[in-house]
């Protein structure tokens, strides 16, 4: 990149920085005027699986991150509309293509009253990516920092990481290439600051109740493994005046039926998610309490592009064409998920949705075309496919539907292989499959995470597909300083990659769940499906 180009980028980013600063003024959830609050601001939400850790560096799952973001607050945060809002940082600006400066608020403190400083972030990020910490998803986020991957891989010391404290309240972040969506990245729980003194004092036990010091809207009160995590309002939190809830209980109930029963008997205010198959009946029974917002997630079938049968694009295309997504959505899963014919889901930032032209053809025409493609590829009826999925009734139902589509429309036989989840993902990662169930949900809203599914050599590209032209467009898009141009390039890249039929897109996820009518702050349009407890309130009931 030449100097003139860099200067041009810098000018554009300074303009952008002003916009970011303006955005930084609004943050806390506002309770609508006239709302009569309950005197008892206590909220019980089922959070599903037991968190694997409450140490931000060791958090992997959505479940743990949800609690983590209540106990710790990063530079930015994602609110209940799915929007990136200021957190500890009150403003930020991109000083050049790959450098960002975040200004921390003076009022941010730890729950012990000590100020949160830029050094706390430097310490936390170095610790997160330090090979000694062995954080399982370190490399996922390391790619956004200069020397991040080298630090994770032990090739460079943590002090070489692209983050430094300019002064107590100013943090500079350097990225290896332009990352226009960085404010969203630093909202993830893993990039929260952590209290150095507490960690050094208690070691591994620093996350236990009584020991933990946090900087989030809530503090840890109790943690009963496999039962619940209880947090209480943090009076030292900088925005405590705008936090309505005084106590939040995160239940760790995985069983969908137990979740529903707890909801029905009034033991919880918000479910984690309905069990498969329960949506229609429960929607009729609790119409005003049912929520089913679309999630920024893609349900798809991975195709092993290196497989002797599937390496032929015509076979992959035929398999994709004949699956009737409308029937799959309305009759098979029947839980409000949206049919998909492209890589990007609705609501995903920096990319437009693409759609195969045959998606609007009548099914007869699609089947005829698919048969023609198979004949050209020399695939005869009776040819065997092997479909791998993890054992759950939901996935089984979908798999049987797909197999019946391939059998009735193309004459192909499908052998079903039901595995434990851990075995399925190992096989997918190792390329030991032909067709496999897959799903993808973002942790921050940007097209990059979806495009990684089809990029050459990407760690998450289990299909082993590669379209070099699409990769070039993605690279160009990520270098672009113009958001509209970036979006156009990434959309074009997605279309190009998907024209190779690397995978079979099926549905956009949705999250059907019941929420009590007295819970305020829930937003069905929140495609991130992340809810900070600070954005909830309890209406008088």
């Amino acid at each position, binding site marked *: 990149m030449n100097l003139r180009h860099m200067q041009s980028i810098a000018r554009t980013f300074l303009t952008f920085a002003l916009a970011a600063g303006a955005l930084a003024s609004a943050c806390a959830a506002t309770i609508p005027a006239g709302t009569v609050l309950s005197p008892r601001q206590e909220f019980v939400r089922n959070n599903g699986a*037991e968190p694997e850790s409450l140490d931000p560096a060791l958090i992997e799952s959505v479940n743990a991150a949800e609690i983590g973001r209540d106990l710790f607050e990063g530079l930015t945060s994602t609110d209940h509309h799915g929007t990136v809002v200021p957190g500890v940082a009150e403003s930020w600006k991109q000083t050049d293509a790959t450098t960002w400066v975040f200004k921390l608020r003076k009022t941010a403190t730890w729950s012990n009253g000590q100020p949160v400083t830029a050094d706390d972030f430097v310490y936390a990020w170095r610790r997160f990516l330090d090979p000694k910490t062995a*954080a399982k998803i370190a490399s996922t986020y390391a790619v956004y920092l200069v020397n991040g991957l080298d630090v994770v891989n032990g090739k460079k010391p943590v002090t070489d990481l692209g983050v430094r404290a300019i002064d107590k309240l100013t943090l500079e972040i350097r990225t290896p290439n332009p990352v226009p969506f960085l404010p969203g990245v630093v909202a993830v729980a893993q990039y929260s600051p952590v209290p150095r003194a507490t960690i050094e004092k208690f070691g591994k036990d620093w996350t236990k109740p009584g020991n933990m010091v946090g900087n989030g809207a809530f503090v840890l009160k109790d943690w*009963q*493994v*496999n039962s619940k995590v209880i947090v209480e309002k943090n009076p030292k939190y900088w925005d405590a005046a705008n936090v309505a809830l005084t106590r939040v209980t995160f239940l760790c109930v995985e069983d969908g039926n*137990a979740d529903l*029963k*707890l909801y*029905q*008997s009034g033991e919880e205010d918000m479910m984690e998610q309905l069990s498969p198959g329960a949506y229609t009946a429960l929607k009729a029974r609790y119409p005003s309490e049912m929520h089913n917002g679309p999630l920024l997630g893609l349900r798809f079938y991975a195709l092993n592009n290196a497989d002797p049968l599937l390496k032929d694009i015509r076979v992959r295309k035929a398999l994709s064409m004949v699956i009737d997504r409308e029937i799959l959505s309305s009759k098979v899963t029947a839980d409000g998920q949206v049919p998909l014919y492209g890589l990007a889901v609705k609501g995903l930032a920096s990319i437009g949705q693409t759609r195969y032209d045959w998606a609007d053809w009548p099914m007869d025409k699609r089947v005829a075309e698919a048969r023609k493609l198979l004949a050209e590829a020399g695939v005869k009826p009776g040819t065997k496919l092997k479909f791998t999925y993890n054992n759950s009734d939901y996935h089984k139902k979908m798999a049987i539907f797909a197999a019946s589509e391939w059998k009735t429309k193309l004459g192909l036989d499908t052998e079903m292989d039901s595995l434990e989840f851990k075995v399925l993902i190992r096989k997918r990662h190792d390329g030991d499959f032909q067709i496999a169930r897959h799903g993808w949900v973002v942790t921050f809203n940007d097209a990059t995470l979806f495009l990684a599914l089809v990029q050459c050599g990407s760690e998450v590209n289990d299909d082993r597909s590669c379209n070099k032209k699409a990769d070039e467009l993605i690279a160009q898009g990520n270098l672009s300083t113009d958001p509209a141009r970036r979006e156009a390039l990434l959309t074009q890249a997605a279309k190009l990659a998907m024209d190779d039929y690397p995978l079979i897109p099926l549905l956009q996820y949705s999250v059907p769940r019941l929420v009590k009518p007295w819970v305020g702050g829930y937003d069905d349009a929140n495609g991130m499906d992340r809810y900070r407890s600070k954005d909830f309130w309890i209406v008088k009931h």
Partner: protein
Amino acid sequence: MWAYVLRRLLVTIPTVLAVVTICYLMLHATPGGPFDAELKVSDAVLANLQAKYHLDMPLWKQYLYYLNDLIHGDLGASFRYADWSVNDLVKRALPVSLAIGGTAMVIAIVLGVGIGIVAALRQNSAIDYIVMLFGNIGSVLPSFVLGPLLVLVFAITLPWLPSGGWDDFAPRYMILPIALLTLINVSTIGRIMRGSLIEVLSSNFIRTARAKGLPTRVVVMRHALRPALLPVVSVIGPLAISSITSAIVTESWFSIPGLGRLIVNGASDRDYTLVLGLVILVTVLAVFLNLIVDLAYAWLDPKIRY
């Protein structure tokens, strides 16, 4: 007798060792590993993780490491629950399982034996049929049917009790799970008690006791009960173990943080140390409970001497 107890306790050591070894090998032979996740762990991080848990060593060396920790009372670090050691997890889950399973077992024994006695004394009468009918409901209906029924009646229709959850041994959270486990076990104990007592009551020594003019109460309580309890005692061992350590359906349905959920989650998460720790615990409990059962035999039957 003390020599016998000591001998039995010493036998525990090779038993545990054999169980641990077999389980260790089986776990490591199972496809999928503790670090397999949707987001693939990069090679460097995987190497760090493996080093942290000694998984980078040859299997025999890992095994020796594990045994060394075990001898020092350390069940190791959990793979799934990063903030807790297996010792922590067991320390928290065992009292929960003991409270639920142990209480249910005691109630089931008292009720089961009582039902058995009543049914045996009024054999083939209406009382016998009614008592055994109710007792058998627990056997006929599986726990995944009985559990929801209890919740429907006592938590949702009549909102008297919470439908699930746990709050530091608060009795209201314990009533329904204990009731469920009791119902499951009471019929087994009741049926065995009934059959055994009927058999004992037709023995010559009972006839002699009756001929001496002893009242029925004395005949039953002093002469018939002890020998009739022998088969009941035999089943109590396995029933108690399953109530304490394997109440998986009950724990899952009522969201109780006990050992059953840990075992299931540990296995599916490939949490090697957690599963091994729990297997050791179950083995020790099994050996210990079987020893108590054997000692109870000697107390109940004067012909048995150790």
